[in-house]
Each structure stands twice: as C-alpha cells, then as structure tokens.
C-alpha cells in the first residue's frame, strides 16, 4: 500500500525532497558528486596526463566519486576503449597521489570509453552521443555530463558548436550538462566577448566553469580566512598603514615545450590577466556578505571595476625576455633560441604592471603585479608592504638596517604567512633589524587532503562554482590589461632582455624606483 501511494506522489514533492541523512551540522560527511560522465576533449596533453587523469583516480580513491561515474576521452587518435584505458592507467600509476589500489582502478575502468574523431566530424559527435546514452543506461550516470575542454582555445568554438548542434548541451529537469574551459579566456577584451557569445549560445552562465589551474580553492579559502576570520589584519588593510602591495608569480623554468602556445601570448596574457588579477581582487576586495558564489563574485567585480592600469605605461610597466645563460647551475637557451620561436618575436616572458584602485580604502596604494619565467625560484606571493615609520625614537644608527614591516601571504610552493618586523639584536648595543616570523599550516599536499585539481573537478561535478570567475570578471580583467598590451604592441620593439635566473629586466627595477620603492626578493 505504501508502495502505491508513493509511486503516484506528485513531482513537486520530489523536487522539494529533503534528504533526512543530510545535516549541515554534520561536517564529516563529504559531498559525493552525483552520478555523472566526465568527457574530456584533448586527452594527449601534459595537463590531461599529469593532472586530470590522476585527479579523477584520486577522487575515486577517496570515495568522492559516485558509484555511477564514467570517463570518456574524445580525440583524433586511432584508439579503442582499451588503448585509452591503458593511457589513463599509466598516467594514474605514474602521477596519482594516493596509493594505487586495484579495486578502485577496476571501478573506474568499467566506465572508461574512447570516442575517436575530429572536432569537425559530425559522425564522431553522433558516436559521442550514443556512447553517453549507453553509459547512462549501463553505468547509471543519469544523463549528467561535464565536458572538459582541455584543448587550445582556437578549438573552443568548434567544439561548443558541435555540442550544441548534437543536442549534447541540453539540460532537463533531472539532468545537468556543464562545460569546463581553461584559461586563456580570449586574448583581449574583444576576443573574450566573442568567446563568451559562443559559450553562452550553448550554455547558461551557471553551466560554465572557467578554470584557472594556478588558483586552487584552498588558496582562495586560505586568503579569505586570513582576511575575514581575524580581527588584527583587517584594520591595517588600507591606505592608512600600507604603502604598496606586490603580487608576484615567478617560475624558474623557461617555456619548455609550449612554444606553439606561448609565442604571441606572453606573460601578461598568460598569468597577469587571470591569475594575478584574481589574487589582486581577493586581496583588495571589501568583505563579502557571505562565502556564497554570488557574494564573493559581487565583491571581486566591484573592486575590478574600480581598478585601472596606471598611466603612463612607459614609466609604470616593464616587460622582458630571457636571454640564454646560466640558470640554477645549468646552461639554458634564451627565449629567442627556443625551438619554434621566431628570432624577431616580440612576446614577453616577464611582465610587470602597476594598477591603482580608485576607492577610499586603496587610494594612494599602488599594486604592483609581476610575473616571469626563468626567475631565480618558483614562488607565488602577495606582499603587503607597510609604510615607513613616521617617527623613530631611536638614533639613526640603531635602526640603520630596519626596513618597513611586511605581511606576506605565501601561496607557492608552500602556503603560509610571513610577518616581517623589527626586533632588537641580542647584546648590549641597541640595534634593531628586520626579522621574519613564519607560519605554515602543515602541508597542503598531504595525501589525506585533496589537491587543487581534485577539488576543481569535484566542484564541477557537484555544480559548486563559487570560486570560478564569471564572464564579467574575465572581461573586467581584460579591460584593465588591454591598454597596456596595446601600448606594448604599438612599440613594435622586442622586450628588454634579462639574464636567466635573475629577477627580471632593469626597467622593472626602475619602474618601482620611480615610485620610491623596490621589489621584494621573495
């Protein structure tokens, strides 16, 4: 009897269903994604093998993937399911962070498929559709499909058009479709808007996940916790106490095998437009009203709208290109000698810009954003530099080596916080010098806590997008950066060269010297 009455229950009751086993106070229960298929376009790339495939396995190993999960590869390669499974298997064994366990692998293997074809091939997309329908039936994936576009941006349009054309982007009340695209989101404002038109023709904003793989959720949450879960930092977080802010992302490697992608793009588009401007927005934004997606995005958008790159660009920007030479004890090629780079390339491998925020909190506090390849070390950090002491009640010799205080939020390689302040040198002399105090919360890379990519994939499958940038943020970032890019392009000269293993070209130092400050050595 009970059976009958429930079967005829009206559908609106189902949609209002509250799971009695869920309780927001029960913080142990991990959120396990619902049944779904992850379809990957571009399965042969480094990122796919080293990050995505292992992350899928690690999620399964942690029990965060649903029973009823399938993983489909789409590429030109002449492969069948087994070939693809073998590639995934090798990637997993080589790069997964959690121990290899046969039963987890077997669980994944049951849902691995491969669809062979060109992006322009209608038949291939028909086959993809059949494969997905088949998986929904045999693996119980419930019509929920996430399309991960791990392909060069020039293919975004054709793939998205094909998805739309073959009805693969259509959601229903009971199933979702999502698309994941990775930076770069265009190469300037116009192209970003064009990309946005293509994406929005097939998908609504809440179906689109823009991934910046440099910016893990853990980082963002750490930053938010430091700023908004503490009393002592926020009162200092303004132009009363800060002189300027430096945001750095340095890499010690060259462009490696990415010549095809990198030349014509350059450091500013590759890193400043997305990663550094996101870090900037999180550092400079006002307190959000909550940690929900909309509250957070609203604050980021507001601060980006209030921001512009500082004119004149000949004085407040710098760009560079690495020479050949010795870097970290090895002889390395210069950018122009790298394979596949034309000798007359004007692409920069180092970029630094100054931005100013036009609001009460930040007026008069410049933000310096820099990124470069072949720097001395791999490091990402946000350094809040305090003003010099207004008055020093010591004699000049006592404090001759004392600099300004700094609060540094370290992001790579280990997340943590450093506070630089003055302390007395032990001894009978009154001598004050700078010291560092470090905090590091365990390692964010312990086996027991999910890595950035795992969290990204899990968020996509859960439909939990708070920390992914929305198209407005992407476009605002281009609006800030475009004038600088136009100025550099208009110079029609090659960027100033710098020795590998150094902190960039001379013009970068001069750019800060003009403002009476200097770059930190991270």
């Amino acid at each position: 009897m009970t059976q009958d009455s429930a079967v005829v229950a009206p559908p609106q009751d189902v949609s209002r269903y509250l799971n009695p086993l869920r309780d927001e106070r029960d913080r142990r229960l991990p959120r396990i994604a619902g049944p779904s298929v992850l379809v990957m376009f571009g399965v042969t790339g480094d990122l796919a093998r080293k990050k995505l495939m292992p992350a899928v396995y690690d999620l399964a190993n942690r029990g965060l993937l649903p029973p009823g999960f399938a993983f489909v590869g789409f590429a030109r390669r002449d492969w069948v399911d087994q070939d693809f499974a073998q590639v995934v298997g090798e990637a997993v064994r080589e790069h997964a962070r959690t121990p290899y366990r046969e039963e987890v692998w077997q669980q994944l293997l049951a849902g691995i498929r491969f669809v062979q074809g060109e992006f322009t091939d209608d038949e291939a997309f028909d086959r993809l559709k059949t494969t997905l329908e088949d998986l929904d039936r045999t693996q119980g994936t419930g019509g929920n499909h996430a399309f991960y576009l791990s392909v060069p941006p020039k293919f975004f349009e054709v793939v998205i058009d094909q998805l739309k054309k073959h009805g693969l982007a259509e959601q229903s009340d009971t199933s979702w479709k999502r698309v994941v695209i990775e930076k770069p989101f265009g190469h300037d404002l116009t192209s970003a808007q064009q990309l946005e038109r293509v994406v929005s023709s097939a998908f609504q904003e809440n179906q689109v996940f823009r991934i910046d793989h440099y910016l893990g959720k853990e980082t963002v949450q750490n930053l938010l916790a430091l700023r908004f879960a503490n009393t002592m930092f926020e009162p200092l977080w303004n132009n009363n106490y800060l002189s300027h802010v430096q945001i750095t992302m340095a890499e010690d490697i060259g462009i490696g095998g990415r010549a095809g992608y990198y030349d014509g793009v350059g450091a500013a588009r590759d890193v400043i437009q997305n990663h550094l401007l996101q870090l900037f927005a999180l550092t400079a934004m006002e307190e959000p009203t909550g940690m929900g997606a909309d509250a957070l995005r609203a604050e980021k958008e507001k601060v980006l709208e209030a921001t512009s790159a500082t004119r004149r660009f000949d004085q407040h920007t710098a760009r560079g290109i690495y020479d050949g030479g010795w870097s970290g004890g090895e002889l390395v090629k210069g950018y122009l000698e790298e394979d596949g780079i034309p000798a007359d390339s004007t692409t920069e491998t180092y970029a630094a810009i100054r931005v100013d925020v036009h609001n009460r909190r930040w007026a008069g506090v410049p933000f310096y954003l820099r990124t470069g390849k072949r720097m001395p070390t791999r490091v990402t950090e946000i350094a809040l530099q305090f003003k010099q002491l207004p008055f020093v009640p010591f004699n000049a010799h006592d404090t001759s080596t004392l600099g300004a205080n700094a609060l540094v939020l370290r992001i790579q390689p280990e997340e943590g916080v450093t506070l630089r302040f003055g302390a007395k040198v032990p001894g009978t002399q009154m001598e004050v010098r700078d010291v560092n105090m470090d905090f590091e919360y365990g390692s964010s890379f312990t086996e027991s806590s999910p890595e950035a990519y795992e969290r990204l994939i899990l968020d996509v499958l859960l439909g939990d997008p708070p920390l992914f940038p929305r198209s407005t943020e992407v476009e605002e970032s281009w609006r800030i950066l475009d004038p600088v890019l136009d100025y550099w392009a208009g110079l029609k000269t090659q960027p100033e060269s710098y020795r590998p293993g150094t902190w960039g070209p001379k013009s970068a130092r001069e750019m800060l010297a003009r403002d009476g400050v200097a770059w930190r050595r991270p």
Partner: protein
Amino acid sequence: MTIEMKDTTAARVTSALLGHHHELGNAGSGMVHTFIVATDRDDYWEAYNAALAANREHPSRILIVIRDPEAPDGLDASIHTETEARGDVIVLTMRGRTVEHPGSVLRPLLVADLPVVVWWPNEAPEDLLTDRIGKLANRRITDALGAVNPTQAIIDRAYYHSAGDTDLAWTRTTTWRALLAAALDQVRQPVTAATVEAATDNAPASLLAAWLGLRLGVEVTVIQTAGPGITAARLQTPAGVVEIVRTGLEDTVYRMPGQPERKVALRRRNVDELITEELRRMDDDVVLAEVLAEMVRQNGQCALDLSRRGATTV
C-alpha cells in the same frame, strides 16, 4: 637521536626541549595544538605512528603518556628529535604514584594557549571530562574498538558524553554514512525501513544503526554476520531497496532502484586516517552527541548516570 631522561621532572624536560629548539635554531613555532596520547601499554607503536602521521597535516606537540603504576615512583622522558614530525615528540613514562598526578607533568608541557587534544587508543576512563588527563583537554578522542570490551566502551561513551568527546568507532562510520546519504540524494524517496549487517558486538554498527534510526525515524534492524566490521546497509524505499554490501575485504557492491549494480571502493581506513579526520575539528560533534543520546534512550535510563550528574539534570 633521542634525548633520554631518567628520573626527571617536567621542568627539566621543558628546559631540555628549549635547549633542543635553540640548537635547531627554531622556536618550536607553527604548532596548532598539543596532542596527548594516553596509553597503559608498552605496544604504543601503532598509536605513536598514527600520531606522527596526523602530525603531517596538523603540526603539533605530541606527548605520549605511558602509565606504569606498579613501578617505583618517578618520571622518565625521552625527546625524539629525529622523527619526521613538524613539532615535538616526547614520550613520558609515569611510574608509581606519578600516574595519579599526570596533570603535574603535562601542564608545563602544553603548547601555550592552543587547544589540547587527548587520545586514548586503548582503554579509556569511564568519564573523560573528570579524568585527570581528560580535564586538561578541549577535545577527547577514544577508540571503543581498542578497548577490551568495545560494546561496553561505546555504552560508556553514550552515558558520559560531553562536548568535545568523540570516538573512532563513529569516525569509522563516515564512509558508510557518506555513501548512504549520497544514495538518498539520488533516490529522493522516503525510507520505510533500514537494516545494518555487522559482526557481533560491532560498535560502529551500533552507531550507524542509531544514526539511521534517529535521522530516518524508522526501526533499524541489526543483523549479525561474520564481519569483519559492518558488512551491509540497506534502506527500503517505495521505489526499491538501496543496498551497500561488502562482498570482500576490498570489494563493495552498490545497488540502487532502477540503476545497474555497481562496484564502489569502500576500504576500511587505518588509524592514521581516522585520527587525521578527528583532528580537523576542535568543536563539538553535535550529530554524534544526538546519536549517543539516542542510544541511551534505546537502552533505557541509567540510574547511575543520573545520580552522578547531580540534581540539575533530573
């Protein structure tokens, strides 16, 4: 190297620890809590290794307490300096009457102002909050499965629960609870009956059953099997049965109404992982508190408990 100190005092241990920090050139900073492991047994290595493993995620000062009441009065200490721990590791052997005054040894060694967590990997005192070590701590972790009589241990936990207490038997149910909750997310149907199958006297199974009963408002049948641990959980819904059945040590089958049968990875987690999960939270586990209260309700009121807790609770 290990700094061995026989017949010593807490003050001497503190000063040796400071000396050690000084030699390393760090101030022993960056620790997030003090982690006391209270054991009576010589075979504390499993607990020791679990504490070190958890330390990778939560840098802390680890104080391993070994109680030896039969030995002559005194305190022995060893500071383990060559571990991979990002913090301090000190083994304290309390002998004779020192066992009755553990606070006198531990209090000087707690990291200033930060939470104190105590873990009893084996037998735990009946009432953790009034225990001599337990009262130093903000968080008290027990393991019913490490006790000689796990069922009695979990009943003690239920009667004497106070804010900040948790038991690893509850931690062991997390993966099962997660799968069951995920299943209901999909089925979206009311549950009319539930069954838990487990080895005889399995403490996690009792907790899982009490949780299901409490949340679903249905009778939960517990069926005894050969184990190990929990072997199956079933939820009856109008659409059919949701079923998670462990078919082997590493194989688990997951069945949902209207969906093909699937395998899931449901591994029994080791103590390292359980302790790491516990240390993520310093606040009260209110869900566990409710589940334990439900167990007390099912087992009838305990006169002993009410008389001990004084008139305010009556």
